[in-house]
C-alpha cells in the first residue's frame, strides 16, 4: 500500500535535491555522446579498416586486423591527398588573412561609431549571414561568369591598365583557387567581424586617451594599445574562418578548380563516389589532426573569454 507513495516521495526528494541538476546535465551529455562522439569513434575505427566490395563496404581483416595503417600510408604517398591538403590550407589561410584585413577595420569602424549607428551596421553585417549560404555562393557564380557585367567591368578595367598585347576578352575567374578564396572571404567575413567587434567594443577608450596624452599619435595608439588588446578577438575570428574554410565542401565544389580539389571534396568523393569508407575516414582523421592546434587555440581563447565574462558579471554585483 505504502510502497508507491514512498517511492514517489523519494523520487520527488531526489529531484529537488540533485535530480533536476543531474537531468539538466545528463540529457544533453548523453545526446552528444551518442550522436556526436560515437560517430567520431566510428570514423576513427573505420580509418583502420579495409575497403571491401560488400555492403557496408568495409571489413577488419587482412594482415593487421586491428591496426591497419594502409590507409594512412596511402595518405602520405599518394600526391592527390598531399596536394589537396596543401591547396586547402593555402586557400583557407589566404581567405583568413583577407578576412582579417577587411574585417578588422570594419569591426573597428563599427565599434567606434555611435550607439544607434552601431546597431544598424551590425544588422547589416548579420543580414547576409541569415540568408542562405548556398545562395550567397551562387550569387558569386553569377558575378564571376565570363559574360557577367562584373566580369566585363573587371576586364575593361584590366585592359585599360595593361599593354594591348595582354588584353583579355574576359577574366577567367570561375573554377580557380582565386574564386574559392574570394567566395570564402565573402561567406565567412561575418565570422571574422563579429568576434572582433565583440572584443573591440569592450576596450576601454580611456586607454587610447591615456596613450595619446603620453604623446602617441593615433596610428601609434592603435599599434601600441588597440592591436595588442584585440589579439584574442583576432584569434577567435581567425579560427572561426580558417577551420571551416579548410574543410569547406560547397565553395570548392561550385566555384573551385576540379584539377586542384580541396580536402573536403576529396573526403566527399572518396566516401560517396569511390565508396571507400576507410580511406575517407583516414583523410578525415588526418584533417582533424591538422586542425587540432588551431582548434585548441580557439577553445582556449573562447573559454578564457567566457571566464572573463563570468568574472565581470560577478564583480558587477
Amino acid at each position, binding site marked *: 500500500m505504502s510502497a508507491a507513495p514512498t517511492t514517489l516521495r523519494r523520487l520527488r526528494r531526489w529531484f529537488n535535491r540533485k535530480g533536476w541538476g543531474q537531468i539538466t546535465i545528463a540529457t544533453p551529455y548523453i545526446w552528444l555522446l551518442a550522436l556526436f562522439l560515437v560517430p567520431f569513434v566510428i570514423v576513427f575505427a573505420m580509418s583502420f579498416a579495409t575497403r571491401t566490395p560488400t555492403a557496408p563496404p568495409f571489413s577488419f581483416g587482412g594482415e593487421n586486423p586491428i591496426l591497419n595503417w594502409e590507409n594512412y600510408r596511402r595518405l602520405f604517398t599518394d600526391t592527390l591527398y598531399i596536394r589537396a591538403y596543401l591547396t586547402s590550407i593555402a586557400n583557407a589561410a589566404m581567405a583568413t588573412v583577407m578576412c582579417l584585413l577587411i574585417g578588422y577595420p570594419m569591426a573597428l569602424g563599427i565599434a567606434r561609431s555611435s550607439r544607434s549607428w552601431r546597431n544598424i551596421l551590425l544588422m547589416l553585417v548579420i543580414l547576409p549571414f541569415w540568408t542562405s549560404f548556398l545562395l550567397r555562393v551562387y550569387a558569386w557564380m553569377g558575378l564571376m561568369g565570363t559574360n557577367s557585367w562584373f566580369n566585363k567591368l573587371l576586364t575593361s578595367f584590366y585592359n585599360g591598365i595593361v599593354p594591348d598585347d595582354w588584353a583579355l576578352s574576359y577574366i577567367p575567374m570561375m573554377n580557380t583557387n582565386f574564386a574559392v578564396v574570394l567566395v570564402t572571404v565573402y561567406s565567412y567575413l561575418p565570422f571574422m567581424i563579429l568576434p572582433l567587434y565583440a572584443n573591440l567594443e569592450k576596450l576601454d577608450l580611456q586607454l587610447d*586617451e*591615456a596613450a595619446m*596624452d*603620453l*604623446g602617441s599619435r593615433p596610428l601609434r595608439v592603435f599599434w601600441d594599445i588597440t592591436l595588442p588588446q584585440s589579439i584574442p578577438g583576432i584569434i577567435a575570428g581567425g579560427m572561426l574562418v580558417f577551420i571551416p574554410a579548410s574543410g569547406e565542401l560547397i565553395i570548392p565544389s561550385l566555384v573551385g578548380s576540379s584539377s586542384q580539389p580541396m580536402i573536403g571534396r576529396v573526403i566527399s568523393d572518396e566516401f560517396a563516389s569511390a565508396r571507400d569508407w576507410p580511406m575517407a575516414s583516414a583523410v578525415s582523421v588526418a584533417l582533424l589532426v591538422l586542425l587540432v592546434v588551431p582548434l585548441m587555440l580557439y577553445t582556449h581563447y573562447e573559454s578564457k573569454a567566457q571566464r572573463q565574462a563570468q568574472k565581470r558579471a560577478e564583480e558587477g554585483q
Partner: protein
Amino acid sequence: MSAKAEPSQGSARATPEVARAGSSEFVRVEGVTKKFGSFTAVDDVSFSIDRGEIFSLLGGSGCGKTTILRMLAGFETPTRGRVWIDGQDMTDVPAYERPVNMMFQSYALFPHMSVEKNIGYGLKHEKMSKAQRGDRVREMLDLVQLTGLSERKPHQISGGQRQRVALARALARSPKLLLLDEPLAALDKKLREQTQFELMNIQDRTGVTFIVVTHDQEEAMTLSSRLAVMDKGRIMQVGTSTEIYEYPGNRQVAGFIGSINFFDARVIRRNGDLLRLDVPDLGGEVDAAAIDGVSSGDEVTLAVRPEKLVINRARPDETNRTLGTVEGLAYFGKDSLYRVRLPGGNLVSAMSVNSRRAGENERVADWEDQVWLSFAASSAIVLTS
C-alpha cells in the same frame, strides 16, 4: 599677459582679503564654452592658475569639471573660448603634442604592459637613449615607492599601487601641467588621507602645476592652494580653501561647502564694521560683519556655520543669541551635532567640540533641553545672492 581678460558672470568673485599678485600666470582658460549637441557642459568659464599651484575644480557630477580637464588635456575642443598654457595658445593642439599629462580616474593603466612599461610608455616619444629612459623609469618608481614591483602587470598590484603607477606614468615625461581626475576617489578612506599628503609632497618636490578635479570637498580643501567651485557648467567662486569656506560668495557656494544655517534677514543700518540686521527667525536684531554694497532696508541672507554656533545652558554674554529646544543629538566622538528648534519654528544645526571627557549625563545639553545659541558678529556671513 593680455589685458582684455574681462570678468564674465561665471568667473571669480573677489572676496574681501584677496589680493593676489597675478604675475606668474601659467594656465589661462578664457571664456570657454563646450556644447555637446544641445547640452551645454561648460558655460563661458574663465580662470587662471599660477605656476606651481595645486588648483582644484570642485563640483557635483555633471557640473562640467571633467569637461574642463579634458579640454586642458586636449581630448575635447572648446566650442568657444581659448586655452593658454605657459603663454602658448593650446586650444587646437592635439593631446599628443601638449606639455600636459593626465592621471585618469580609472587610472587607465595599459593592462598588457608591466608597471615598468606603463611608466616608460610616454618616454618612447622623447629623444632619449635607452639607458636614460631606464634611469628615468627607476627614478619615477623610486618617487612613488614602487621599486620592487616593476615587472608586475597592473592586475597584480593593489588599488593604491595602481594609483601610484598612474601618477608616475603621468609624471615621467616631466609635464608642465599635471591633470588629476578624481585622483583619490577609488581609494578607501584611510589610504586616501595618506595619499593626499603624498601627492602634496610629490608636487612640492617636482614643482609641477597640478589641476585636480574632485567632487570631495575635504579633498579639495586640504590638497589645493586654490579651488574653483562649479555648478551647471559655470564657476561660482574661485579662492583659497579659507576664502571659500569662511567667505562664500553666495548661498550656493555656502551650502555646497560644509553645512550651514540660513536665515532671512533685513538690513537695518551699518555701524562701522558691523551691520545691524533684523532676523525674525532669531527673535530680533543681530550684528554681523559688514560687506560692501548693501544699504538699509535690503533683504539679505544671514548664514552661520554650525561650529560657529555656541551652545550653552546659561544665558551667554554675546548679544547675537537666541533660545531654543534640543530636538536631535548626534554624537560623533570628537564632536556632537545638535538640532535645535527655534521659537520661530526653524531647525538649526550647532556643532560642539567635545573638548572635555563627559559621560552621557554630563553633556552640554540633552534632548528636550532649553539651550541658548549664540555667535560672534565676525563669524556671521551676510549674503546678497
